């Protein structure tokens, strides 16, 4: 059931031509996500990436169908708050958001590191060793805000790719990036990067409408836990070059 719905949605996206213009109905649950390579991307007429593989497996195990749309996070969160049978992911489960949704977590476990240019090395024993440096992050990642709140000098760009370019042009000293996406960007640019310090672990959650049936929430949470416990998630992350 899941596969049929997803392919139907894919065809609709292709026909529509614009990711955010289509409306999908008929699946058990409608999901919203946003494009961050290599977690969720829209390539060759279909969504793909680590997160999409998680969802495929999760919904298959739960015997539920889903449809997915790529929508800016802010808009997606407002929609999910208002409409039943909808969820958005991945979302940081903050105290402020806790009250507004039901939660299935963690759909992603991500670690953030500080990267320097390949030929440079910064001896970072603890995070505060990075205090004298300019750190690049991107708007909406959450990690830029985390560092700024701790008093670091953070320069925000609109995409994480821009930070890679800024790092190479010495406009920032360190790039604060999620490990899998940083590896992906570095590989796409033909270089190999290793983090100077892995400093933060984040849990990405699926935020669902308050009126979504409890039974569905519990079923998805149970199956998600099993995917970690039986090694599926570990193998999946490893295939993307990172261990959880």
């Amino acid at each position, binding site marked *: 059931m899941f596969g049929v719905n997803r392919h139907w949605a894919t065809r609709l996206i292709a026909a529509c031509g614009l990711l955010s213009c289509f409306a999908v109905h008929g699946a058990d649950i409608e999901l919203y996500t946003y494009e961050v390579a290599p977690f969720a991307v829209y390539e060759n007429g279909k969504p793909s990436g680590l997160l999409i593989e998680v969802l495929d497996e999760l919904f298959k195990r739960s015997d539920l169908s889903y449809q997915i749309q790529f929508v800016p996070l802010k808009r997606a969160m407002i929609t999910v708050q208002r409409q039943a049978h909808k969820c958005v992911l991945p979302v940081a*489960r903050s*105290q*402020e958001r*806790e*009250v507004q949704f039901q939660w299935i*977590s*963690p759909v992603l*476990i991500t670690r953030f590191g500080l990267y320097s240019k390949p030929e440079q090395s910064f*001896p970072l*024993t*603890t*995070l*505060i*060793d990075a*205090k004298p440096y300019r750190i690049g992050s991107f708007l909406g990642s959450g990690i830029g805000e985390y560092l700024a*709140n*701790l*008093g670091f000098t953070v320069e925000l760009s609109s995409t994480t790719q821009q930070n890679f370019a800024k790092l190479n042009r010495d406009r920032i000293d360190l790039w604060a990036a999620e490990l899998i996406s940083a590896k992906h960007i570095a590989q796409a640019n033909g270089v190999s990067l290793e983090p100077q*310090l*892995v*400093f*933060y*672990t984040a*849990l990405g959650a699926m935020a669902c409408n308050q009126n979504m049936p409890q039974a569905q929430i519990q079923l998805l949470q149970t199956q998600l*836990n099993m995917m*970690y*416990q039986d090694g599926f*998630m*570990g193998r999946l992350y490893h295939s993307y070059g990172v261990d*959880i």
Partner: protein
Amino acid sequence: MQTRKLSKYLLAILGYFSMYSTCYSDIASAQWWLKNELTPSTLSYPQQLEEMQWFIDAAKPYQGLQIRVVSERIATHQYEATVLAKAFYEITGIHVVHELTGEDDVIKKLSAQIMTGQNLYDAYVNDSDLIGTHFRSGNVVALSDFIQNQGKSVTLPSLDLADFIGLQFTTAPDGKLYQLPDQQFANLYWYRHDWFSNVQFRTEFKRLYGYELGVPQNWQAYEDIAEFFSVHVRRIDGRKVYGHMDYAKTDPSLGWRMSDAWLSMAGVGDKGLPNGLPVDEWGIRVEQCKPVGASVSRGGALNGPAAVYAIDKYVDWLNRFAPTESKQLNFTQAGEWPGKGVIAQQIFWYTAFVADLSQPGLPVVNSDGTPKWRVAPSPVGKYWQSGMKSGYQDTGAWTLLNNTPIDRQKAAWLYAQFVVSKTVSLKKTLVGLTPIRRSDIDSEAMTQQAPYLGGLVEFYRSRGRDVWTPTGTNVPDYPHLANYWWRHISQIVEGKITTQHGLDAFAADVDKHLLALSQHPHPCSPKLNPEKSADYWLAQPGAPKNKITSAEKGRTLPYQEAINVWR
């Protein structure tokens, strides 16, 4: 709780340390840290050196390992993450990434590690409020066993567990120690000592209320003082002032406002320390170690007359005496208000804010650096009786999970002991003001610091430190049950439901979850009592308690007498 003072301090020493960081190793490195940072200490220099030599030797099998630990974001942990983790690395060769995040996130990560089986962190600094969860779960390492067995070779001979003031909070009914305290702070009464000393205010207060303006000993006195400043004084030096400050935004922090022992202050639970037995301050009754219900109909007290009184007072004072904005504020936002110089008193105030409210230049700090404010033991409600806990104390404690690989557990245990060792802990206490060791509290360094800390040292030198206590072992699933607090109390605050009906629904939800937990095979798993009439339970001795209809008379004490109450 990041402070400007602490940040500047950390930056300054960062620059200093970076010059040396690659020049030293092992004992030479330890000597450098002892001379330049880890002073004062309750140990002599040779004793400190001996302790460091033990760490160097014990850490050898784990040199080169990188471990990850996580804690909440308060000044004490900021010091650990930035300074002590670096010292530990240079002395032992074990690299520690000490992450800082919100306490709610710490709990989510700990829960995620248990649920998924992924070793997200090698150790957590987790509030001891989860002790009832931990000992029943089977997922947490019993440290008292670990110390005797797998962890014997990595347990500091001079750890001196008897010196810790909070071990009773982290020990379960099975007699085992599950967590090692890392930092403690209490929730006390805060007030403007300068305003309370003002002769004109004192005269006017006595004329209106018939007794002296002083540190309130009961809720009636707190209410009278709140009314006095909000309604009668109203303005000081041209600024509007308030006799009460609080917060009520629908947010998980509203839950802490209640679950951090508000009901104990009202007197909802039974006598007993660190928590009431058989009924604790969550209104949960236990028989043996089994939770049997929160509803009055099952012998609990969560929806009893005393709990209704506690919530009614919270809402009433919020509406009548606090700034209008307070209803829209969460814990963090409300924490800034006392420093503005417009709040006369606050009944529910965490001493983790002491450093923040001691910053030079604040309207609440004198030019000589001493505070214009004081903290004192909290006033209690009309159901409270001698022998009951009187308020809340937070105990952030090192917690190891069973699913962490043993070599990583051992390395993390070494770091945990390092940051609470006698070599380190006095300096850490002076930086973060969250004492854990009796020897530190009684030290000369703390005596010298006392005049600048508004009563904090006096409180921790008193028996009060045993009477202000964390959530206890009656609560079998803190992460889940904690959510009920803010979800139900917010409905009452917003006026959507009466206090009685809101607490009835709350207690029913707790009972329902206790029933679900009763399926878990453990000698201390919940087992619900059969329902009986409320009259039956209210007629029994102790909690749940019958309604007290008589009014209280306000009672106050001068500051010195108030802090001596618990001597």
